[in-house]
């Protein structure tokens, strides 16, 4: 079993590296030199050429953002599924992605005067914090509605998600309709996502949040396993259940909020990646948590690379690609679910 896990870990890493190197070379812009040479020349001369600008200021941050976003959404999805004890609990389905989007949009529209005074990095931090608050409020609401006595009512969980997504979709749509604020982008950005605006500041911020959050979430494997026995039983094994639940809720809200504030809604990743892994590894969270990060990074990197190369010079919104990859998997989840109910 240990060997099996190691094999999967290594293969995913290799795929990630291959995808990364490939992504460096693919895009609307054709390099005149090899990637390696470009980087070396840049370090030597300390000035940008068009080649190095595209590679170092545009492509590499975007690739890193895709990796971090994919990893973050996957590990959050996995953790939420453990928390709610249901494989359908993912950030987009239960509505916290929408909550984050709503607050990010509100911040841009109503906080524009403040935002313009701040330097970029602080602006991004403010946006992330507001998105975090949005995600957290939604998360709290959904949790309170859908759980009682440690049991999750999956129907209420999903319906709360539907309700919130509908509400935030309407408000965000309205904001984009009335707002002249250029920063607000358009509704397509928020509902289908885009990594095109990635830069080093954003990547650094997202990295910090995702690294710290993941480190914490990776330790929750045993607790999430134990939760499958029931909350009381898990407590008998020495775990502080209430503290763990709070931690997962806050960390997931923080990570999802940050990632969504910069890239818009990217759906399906948090649902589909853990689901695929469950086929091989059951719901053993000790294994699912780390593997979902790597697989999520791979999936989103591939999706983003396709999105920016398939209709050059334009780009397909990345949400379309994750939906194409995710919808069939979602359908198979439902078919499986129905089979179990019989």
């Amino acid at each position, binding site marked *: 079993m240990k060997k099996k896990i190691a094999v999967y870990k290594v293969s995913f890493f290799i795929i990630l590296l291959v995808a990364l190197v490939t992504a460096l070379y693919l895009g609307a812009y054709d390099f005149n030199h090899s990637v390696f040479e470009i980087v070396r020349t840049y370090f030597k001369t300390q000035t940008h050429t068009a080649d190095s600008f595209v590679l170092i200021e545009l492509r590499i941050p975007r690739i890193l953002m895709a990796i971090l976003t994919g990893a973050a959404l996957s590990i959050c999805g996995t953790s939420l599924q453990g928390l709610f004890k249901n494989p359908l609990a993912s950030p987009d389905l239960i509505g916290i992605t929408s909550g984050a989007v709503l607050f990010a949009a509100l911040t841009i529209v109503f906080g524009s005067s403040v935002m313009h005074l701040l330097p970029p990095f602080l602006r991004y931090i403010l946006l992330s914090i507001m998105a975090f608050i949005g995600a957290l409020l939604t998360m709290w609401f959904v949790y309170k509605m859908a759980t009682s006595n440690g049991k999750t009512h999956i129907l209420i969980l999903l319906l709360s998600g539907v309700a919130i997504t509908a509400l935030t979709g309407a408000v965000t749509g309205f904001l984009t309709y009335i707002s002249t604020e250029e920063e607000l982008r358009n509704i397509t950005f928020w509902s289908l996502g885009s990594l095109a605006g990635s830069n080093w500041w954003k990547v650094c911020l997202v990295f910090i949040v995702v690294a710290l959050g993941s480190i914490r979430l990776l330790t929750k494997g045993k607790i999430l396993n134990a939760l499958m026995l029931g909350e009381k039983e898990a407590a008998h094994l*020495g775990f502080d259940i209430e503290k763990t639940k709070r931690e997962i809720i806050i960390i997931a809200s923080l990570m999802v909020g940050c990632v969504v504030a910069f890239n818009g809604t990217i759906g399906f990743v948090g649902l589909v990646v853990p689901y695929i892994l469950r086929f091989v590894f*059951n719901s053993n969270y000790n294994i699912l948590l780390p593997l979902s990060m790597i697989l999520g990074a791979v999936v989103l990197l591939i999706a983003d690379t396709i999105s920016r190369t398939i209709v050059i010079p334009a780009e397909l919104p990345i949400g379309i690609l994750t939906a194409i990859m995710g919808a069939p998997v979602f359908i198979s989840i439902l078919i499986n679910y129905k089979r179990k109910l019989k």
Partner: protein
Amino acid sequence: MIQIHDLNFKVKDRFLLQNINVEINKGELIAIVGPNGAGKSTFLSCLANEIVYTTKHFSFKDKDVKSYKKNEIPLHRAKFSQHQSNEINLKNEEIVLMGRYPYFKTEADLSDLEIVEKWMTKTETSHLTDREYEQLSGGEKQRLHLARVFAQLENNIENKLLLLDEPLNNLDVAHQFKTLHLIKNFTQNNNTALVVLHDLNIASQFADRLILMNQSCIEMFDEPKNVLTQERISRVYKYPCIITPHPENQQPIILFG
């Protein structure tokens, strides 16, 4: 080993446990019996710290029970609950391995895996490793969780406490007695077990002492031969019965009707 003085538990305005006083010694196998609704499971829940009760005094191994740390107490005390999850998407060995979670941080030791194997053998669940948990019968699931609970208490600490809430439900006769022997073995190593049982005869055969509960109070706490009298049992269970000594060991046998 356990001293409880005046424990009460109520929900809204109804008392589910009133004025509970017990003193339990090391190495005892104590059966908790009584009619439905008497408070047996509730009492066990209090002992396991699952619910919030009020009490004047509750010491566990001469220390106030609240002074034990959350991650310390699983090494001293384990509970087998009456209702187990129906669906656990893990391999069966992994479920039993959860009993060892208090003992390792990320990766299980070889010793942990050996303990898991040992207890799966003792509960006769080793052959289930390739089956899906959901497809196991009620009895098989039960034995799996028993293995887990026993594995949890496998350590060098003296005087441990095992709480079991109706561990024999769903088990066939052979497995019932095998389980009881496992529990008896446990207590003979100077550990204590409190077992909620429905079957008075089994309780009479195996327990060192009986707690007879009735309507949220302890009716009597003594050896089986003292507790199990015709008058008392008929009154508490509200049904006539006859008590007769066991042909081989003279322990009381209860025949209802």
